[in-house]
């Protein structure tokens, strides 16, 4: 039997790796992917608890998290394309001023 704490530790490790990628990387698409990694870590934690408590609300919540992540990825990538058209760069250090 796998102890529940192992799943929670894995979820915590993935979340922290997502946070570190968010802070360390300079390419905006990679930062977005780090956000998706954090959301996935949370999904794993939800499913682990749903298994432990025997309630299926955890699974339904994971659905909603997936849907929100999909919507956010779509809109975020559209914004990135729009920014790339004007600024010609994907490096976040170069788009930190409102002035071009």
């Amino acid at each position, binding site marked *: *039997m796998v102890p529940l*704490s192992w*799943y929670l530790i894995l979820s915590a*490790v993935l979340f922290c*790796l997502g946070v570190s990628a968010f*802070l360390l990387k300079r390419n905006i*698409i990679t930062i977005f992917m780090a956000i998706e990694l954090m959301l996935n870590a949370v999904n794993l934690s939800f499913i682990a608890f749903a298994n432990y408590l025997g309630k299926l609300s955890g699974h339904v919540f994971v659905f*909603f998290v997936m849907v929100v992540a999909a919507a956010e990825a779509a809109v975020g990538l559209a914004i990135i394309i*729009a920014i790339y058209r004007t600024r010609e760069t994907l490096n976040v250090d170069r788009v930190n001023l409102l002035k071009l």
Partner: protein
Amino acid sequence: MMPQILFLFFAAICVAGAINLVLQRHPINSALSLVVVMASLAALYLLLGAEFVGAVHVIVYAGAIMVLFVFVIMLLNAGAEEQSQGSRIALLIGGPGVAVFAGVLMWLVTRGDKAIGNAKVGGMISSGDNTHNVASLLFKEFLLPFEVTSVLILIAIMGAVVLASRKES
């Protein structure tokens, strides 16, 4: 014995993929490592008895959202990223910060280890399978959030189409 070996195998792939995402310089390699993370997470969901959610995870996340990421990387022809001043500062301060955060989380989890116990392997509810039970929950108790998420997706579609279209001048 067997569930633990399976868990350790898929968890190792997961963490390796996530570390690869942080360490790679080219965004396409990071995107593919994230796909590996998604696939191993789907395998872990199967271990936890959530086969429907695992299959939907592969279809939606690995098969649609990550394809969208790969598309945008291909369209914008993103190259390998360069080191700049901001990233060195972030490494100096952020690296230890994240390590402290991770340590705190793990200490919290292992402190309650005796009280939490084990996760069951495989299916949970004996009557009907996962699809049936999740569907009856989704369409009876959680009907209002379901409808609200459909409106959310509609707004996201419209927003994405408007934002990514070229302005006619």
